């Protein structure tokens, strides 16, 4: 197999340049022969682990979770020539679905609402002559022709008497009756008021009393109560999760800003200050720490006594997703250049800058105007006095704001203010240019 040699040359050990003929052998070789370097690597890993704990209070194991690779922005060799395409077709059936559902559920909803209104009125009744008042509110069915209980079909007699549902007025026997306690009825009618303190003034000593209702009405009323209870109840996990997501969206804007700052700094621009970026990075780190703590709290929430196994899986999954998020989006933020590096970048840039300036020398004068007028915000009053141009006054005021914003660590505002400043400079430049033009025009006119 002589012809395969050309490619086999590929599997060389990068340390001792020995040909190992297959990548697997190369790996084993590297592990065996260059184990000392592996050891160093290992000790570093431990060192790193401790450092990590200090820095982000992350556990080593969290970092070792083998995860599938996270989405990267790949420029795939093979799809470069595919243009962006419109999103695919879809067809919604929700209107049709709702129409069918409404037809079936409208009746039930109306019925439930009617019952709730009646219940409310019944609860407001005074103690005297209750039965009459109840019958006044809800017409009771005439029982003379009913000989059997409609729900269990037992015949009524002296032992098994007829009873009326207080909500719909229908007839049933004692066995088929359901009793709705007053306090529960109160909570159904006015759920919010009764959440913490059961409003005792309305009860008037009828605390132990209850309504006799039929099972049909009971199930409807109970169903409504369940839905209300669930809406009201906010489990701890939801609260923690909402907090987590809130922080994440907060951090996202900070990360965006940081990336902008980083790009700007490494480009040698002076829009942002290095310290500002450092402060921001520290703030992101602190937030990452909080996120991490919250997700850990979610993971260690006690299991619901009646819970399905799923809750545990959910909690762990949230934890894993969060640690992936921190690993892949927050810890991979590019490190800031040091002061020396930054200086080098700036030098390089200014060199280039001056070259450019030489090329378009006609603009030099104007640029100098903008640079020399009161750059430091502290000299606000002086510069206001010294400059008569309203544009320059405005610019100085903005500069003052920028300084204040920086003190308050409001980098977003710094950015928008700097943008304002830039626009002002532009406007000023334009006005200067037109002045020059006017002058030259007038000169021309004079000459002519």
């Amino acid at each position, binding site marked *: 197999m002589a012809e395969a040699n050309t490619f086999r040359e590929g599997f060389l050990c990068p340390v001792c340049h020995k040909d190992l003929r297959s990548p697997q052998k190369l790996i084993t070789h590297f592990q065996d022969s260059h184990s000392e370097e592996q050891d160093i690597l290992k000790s570093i890993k431990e060192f790193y682990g401790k450092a990590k704990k200090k820095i982000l209070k992350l556990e080593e194991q969290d970092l070792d979770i083998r995860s599938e690779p996270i989405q990267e922005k790949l420029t795939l060799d093979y799809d470069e020539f595919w243009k962006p395409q419109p999103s695919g077709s879809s067809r919604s059936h929700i209107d049709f679905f709702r129409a069918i559902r409404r037809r079936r559920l409208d009746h039930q909803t109306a019925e439930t609402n009617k019952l709730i209104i009646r219940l409310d009125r019944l609860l407001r009744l005074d103690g005297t002559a209750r039965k009459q008042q109840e019958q006044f509110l809800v017409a009771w069915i005439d029982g003379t022709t009913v000989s059997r209980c409609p729900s269990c079909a037992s015949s009524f007699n002296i032992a098994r008497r007829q009873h009326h549902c207080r909500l719909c007025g229908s007839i049933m026997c004692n066995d088929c009756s359901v009793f709705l306690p007053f306090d529960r009825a109160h909570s159904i009618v006015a759920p919010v008021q009764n959440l913490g303190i059961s409003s005792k003034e309305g009860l008037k000593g009828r605390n132990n009393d209850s309504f006799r209702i039929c099972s049909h009405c009971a199930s409807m009323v109970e169903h409504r109560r369940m839905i209300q209870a669930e809406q009201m109840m906010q489990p701890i996990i939801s609260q923690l999760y909402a907090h987590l997501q809130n922080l994440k969206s907060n951090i996202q804007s900070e990360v965006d800003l940081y990336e902008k700052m980083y790009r700007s700094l490494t480009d040698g621009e002076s829009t942002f200050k290095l310290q500002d970026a450092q402060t921001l990075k520290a703030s992101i780190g602190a937030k990452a720490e909080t996120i991490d703590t919250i997700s850990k709290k979610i993971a260690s929430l006690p299991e619901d006594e009646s819970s399905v196994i799923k809750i545990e899986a*959910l909690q762990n999954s949230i934890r894993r997703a969060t640690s992936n998020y921190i690993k892949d989006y927050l810890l991979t933020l590019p*490190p800031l250049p040091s002061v020396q590096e930054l200086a080098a970048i700036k030098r390089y840039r200014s060199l280039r800058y001056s070259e450019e300036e030489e090329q378009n020398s006609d603009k030099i004068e104007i640029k100098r105007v903008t640079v020399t007028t009161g750059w430091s915000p502290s000299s606000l009053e002086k510069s206001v006095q010294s400059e008569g141009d309203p544009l320059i006054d405005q610019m100085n005021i903005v500069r003052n704001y920028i300084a204040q914003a920086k003190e308050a660590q409001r980098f977003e505002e710094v950015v928008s203010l700097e943008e304002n400043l830039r626009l002002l400079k532009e406007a000023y430049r334009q006005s200067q240019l037109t002045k020059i033009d006017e002058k030259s025009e007038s000169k021309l006119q004079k000459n002519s």
Partner: protein
Amino acid sequence: MNVIAAVKAYVTKITEESEPGMKVLMMDKETTSIISMVYSQSEIQQKEVYLLERISDSQTPNSGTPLRYLKCLVFVRPTTENIKSLCYELTRPKYGAYYIYFSNIIAKADIKLLAEHDEQEVVKEVQELYMDYLAVNPYLFSIGLINPIKDLSWDSDALQRSVSGVLSVLLSLKKCPLIRYQANSSLCNKLGSKINDIINKESTLFAFGQSSQALLLILDRRDDPITPLLNQWTYQAMVHELLTINNNRVNLSKIPGIPKELSEVVLSAEQDAFYAKNIFLNYGEIGQNIKQLMDDFQLKAKSHQKIESIADMKNFVDAYPQFKKLSGNVSKHVTVVGELSSMVNKYHLLDVSEIEQEITSQNDHSGHLQNIKKLIENEKVRPLDLVKLVILYTLRYQNHANNETTHLIEMLKKRNIPDHLLVNIIYVSEYSSSISSQNDLYNVQDAVKITKRFFKGLSGVDNVYTQHKPLLQEILEEIVKGKLKENLYPCVGVNTFNNRPQEIIVFMVGGVTYEESLAVHYFNKNHPSFKILLGGTSIHNSNTFLEEVKNAVFNIPKKHSRKLIRHINH
């Protein structure tokens, strides 16, 4: 016409329409594969989907309190079974809200049924999103059917599945195509007219108002049984031929001494930059790139070794997550390529492949015969590789005056190759002759430049192991030139004939191969004004192909290979 982008856009739609909150994604077996082709679990977690659930599990009685604070995203195929499970779920909802998405067109009656079961008003959305296919590469999709053809005609479920699969491709790309099919194949005709019927029935759905019409070309695998039998030398194709890729996953557990975390690896160009870069490169280039990958990795590892100052440590901490990720990727590809290279050496696959390629692309009967005979003597070559060689020889020289197939079979028998392998020779020749050939199976160029060197240069196209060009490439060339014959590839129904479509979707009944996918890749690259999308009932390697052939002809009377049957007891 990028199917991966189409599926991704749909998944984003599903996760974003339901507003922020913790979510669970409920799927069936097939939709799970569809999603997992383009998204990994950790990616989908970043879209707030924290739990995955099978719809079939929802039938099990659920004790305990419902998880009202979870939103349930349902993505299932519109099957009767799934509708039944969903109805059950809706009467006892476990979650607070349901967003239901079907992967294809659903009947009104089924929606009505669902609506009638939603008594607690938990359903917030019901939609059709057309991703009813596996998106493998940006321009390659598969339906994932095993043995769709029984006794040389469609299995009725498989036909239905293929119709919905192709329709969903069309809808997800917003194409209402002209349909042409291979005239000599009743399978293609049937599929084409079924698709056409539904396009006509759902005309509002297919009204995209586009000026230029795309072309859907339906082909039959039987026209080219050669391509799936050949050894492959590009990364994706090679991994599939030797290790088998199943929904982007490769099972390595059979390699002795494999670490547990590498027993199944995911090869997805969407998540793996190295794979994306090397997917179409040949064996030699991969060898070089893997070395490069190792070098980069060692360099990184080294730079992490000298930590002397606080600044070094800080840098290390900053770079560590990336480093960790890289190391996982390195060991994955090194293992896969290592296994490929050990198989190539162990089974003398280079020698086998060279003869395969010569048979397919050159004209030298006695020379080929000699080479095959020589290889049969070689104990290292796997029996199935020899059988495949004899199959290629049989297909190539079936009408040659000095055909020696029977002699070769006798030689294989002498090597104690079992009959259940030999019988494949009969199956494939029956399979191939069950369709009256309208194209020359072997596209033999008279003046083949014989380049004996392996991997000459970096392009690797002109080397001895990649001489064979699939029939598909020829058909594509004809389309581009507007020369595809109308009598051989007629239109379905009465349609205005558009000779030069710019966008072409090729669907192959009986499965496609990664070699054809590679051909399409280069075709798209070389013809920027055309866009080709390739799909098939499945993606074959030689093993799955022989399995499918066996199923297709098993009960069919063997008319064409009577001479051979006498020599093989099957």
